[in-house]
């Protein structure tokens, strides 16, 4: 930098000035790299490093008591999708894994949908409040974040278990005679995940609704659009970026959820997160666990790609 400064003022020819400007620019870029190093180190150690370890583990042989043997094997990846019959040695699709995979995707989609159905009106409600009171509503939405996830999940359990609040009320009012089995079902997992991830749906939708010009709604009414048509043709399209972002933010953590399905799903209704944890724990099959984790990662990437492409399409349309 100092070098560039001494040469620059008037003494050099045009090309010299240009060259020194170029040097200064490069120096600035180098300086930026230096400033970026802490972030890069954290990124390498905390994200890329472990990911690299997991990729390597997925191609190794499981150790007898957990851990890995340093011998190449495709068994981990193989058993994600296929299984070999112990006695006959025939190959078949790994039904258990497929059903867990399917349950994960299905419950995550259902959770996303439920969170949208509940979250959109909530976000709309907050966005239409007077400016001064909006922060109070947002504050209320974020309160559950302050309580430990485990405690919130146990609270849901208390609500839906056989002798829980809901069943007790329903039975005492005589609506049902036998308690409805809700705990340890897919339904319980979905309710739990919806509850936990709802704010992640509300906040991005609110962010896009807050910028929304409500005079457009009046214009819609004026042009003969009924309430439903205004919602479908004007409000939803304009809130789409928020809706897409919220859906991604709910879908991705739902797909890999561990605590909620573990507690509310009981032992048998596993989701991907539980299956992965199982392989690293009792299953003592780290390569399979790693391969499953990478499968989950791939699914998340696909979801993100769809999102990015959707947003890009919208942006190119706007400008």
């Amino acid at each position, binding site marked *: 930098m100092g070098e560039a400064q001494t040469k620059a003022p008037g003494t050099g020819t045009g090309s010299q000035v240009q060259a020194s400007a170029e040097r200064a620019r490069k120096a600035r870029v180098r300086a930026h790299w230096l400033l970026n190093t802490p972030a890069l180190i954290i990124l390498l150690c905390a994200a890329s490093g472990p990911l690299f370890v997991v990729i390597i583990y997925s191609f190794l042989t499981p150790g007898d008591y957990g851990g890995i043997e340093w011998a190449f094997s495709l068994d981990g990846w193989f058993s994600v999708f296929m299984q070999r019959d112990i006695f006959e040695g025939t190959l078949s699709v790994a039904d258990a894994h497929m059903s867990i995979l399917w349950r994960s995707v299905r419950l995550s989609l259902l959770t996303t949908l439920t969170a949208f159905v509940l979250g959109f009106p909530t976000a709309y409600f907050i966005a239409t409040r007077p400016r001064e009171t909006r922060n109070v509503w947002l504050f209320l939405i974020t309160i559950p974040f302050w309580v430990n996830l485990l405690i919130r999940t146990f609270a849901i359990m208390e609500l839906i278990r056989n002798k829980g609040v809901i069943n007790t009320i329903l039975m005492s009012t005589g609506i049902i005679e036998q308690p409805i089995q809700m705990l340890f079902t897919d339904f319980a997992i979905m309710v739990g995940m919806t509850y936990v991830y709802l704010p992640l749906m509300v906040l991005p939708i609110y962010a896009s609704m807050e910028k929304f010009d409500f005079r457009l709604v*009046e*214009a819609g009414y004026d042009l*003969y659009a009924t309430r439903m048509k205004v919602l479908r043709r004007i409000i939803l399209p304009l809130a789409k970026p928020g809706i897409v972002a919220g859906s991604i933010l709910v879908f991705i953590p739902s797909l890999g959820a561990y605590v909620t399905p573990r507690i509310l799903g009981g032992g048998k209704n596993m989701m991907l997160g539980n299956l992965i944890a199982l392989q690293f724990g009792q299953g003592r099959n780290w390569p399979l666990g790693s391969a499953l984790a990478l499968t989950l990662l791939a699914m998340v990437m696909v979801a993100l790609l769809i999102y990015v492409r959707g947003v890009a399409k919208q942006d190119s349309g706007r400008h």
Partner: protein
Amino acid sequence: MRGDTDFAVQVKGVTKVFGTGAQAFRAVDEVSIDIQQNEFLTLLGPSGCGKTTLLRMIAGFEHPTAGQILLDGAEISHLPPYQRPVNTVFQSYALFPHMTVAQNIAFGLEMLGKPAGEVRQTVDAMLTLVRMAELRDRRTDQISGGQQQRVALARALAPHPKVLLLDEPLSALDYKLRKDMQIELKRLQSETGITFVFVTHDQEEALTMSNRVAVMNQGKILQLGTPRDIYDHPAERFVADFIGDTNFLNAQVVNSAGGKVTLKLTAGEEVTADLPGGVAPPVAGDSVTAVVRWEHAKLTAQGAGQLSGTLANVVYVGTDTHYYVELSDGTTFVSRIQNSRDDELTFSEGMPVGVSIESNGVQVVRN
């Protein structure tokens, strides 16, 4: 009810109160007005006078606290906006940002369930009408303010409403564009034959475009008439003050007969003044306010004319020169004289002068 359908819109004793209790605000106060078919009617008034609220009640965005609104003789006060064959051009245009120019114009037609072919035809016709055919596939944020204005107009005209409501649509445009749009609006109104109800606080807009002007203040209509009526015969002090440049003179009634009043000006001599309709005839001895437009008086030599005073200020404004005369009773009187190239300044500041008011230049207004 017979004969009521001669009117496009009838507003009957409509009141709109916002808020309750101590905060209650009467935005519109028992307003009645009959808007004729194919008329260009302007609601003119300062901001907060209730003109926009009245427009929004005709559109259906607000509902009257009391009174009735009739469209073609049928009561519509209780209908939601999407059931009223009335369209609005919004001050902010409120174009849909996620749609193209053509999609914006098609929106109302689609909502009415018109067949696709008819929608396309009407959209094309509208694009031609507002001279926007080349920009049909642009996004609304890719076009200029004046073009957005045209799209907003086309969008509101496309469903061929019985009445088009315009809420200060020209206020966001610059001076030149505003001038062009005034003529454009007038053209569109005569070409489509649709009744226009136009809201503005700009007197010039109101006078140039309208068939009739309703001057509003504090939730009431003070005067309704043709631009000429309103300008030449303001009935209220507020109207005279709001529209045009006006001198107010204190005077005493000498006698009053048959629409004419003889006044003794406090700062001058006796003059004959007009008494516009709607102003109660005063009796001799009453104190009244007389108005004289700036352009209806000129300076003369001291002693001549109905008023006398000292020339305090001469302001040259290009087309005209404004002469500020301090009258003997302390009030300031302004005379506007059109300039011509070979004028010579015969009056200079500090001179004692007389003011000569044109015949029919004085009239009495309600205070």
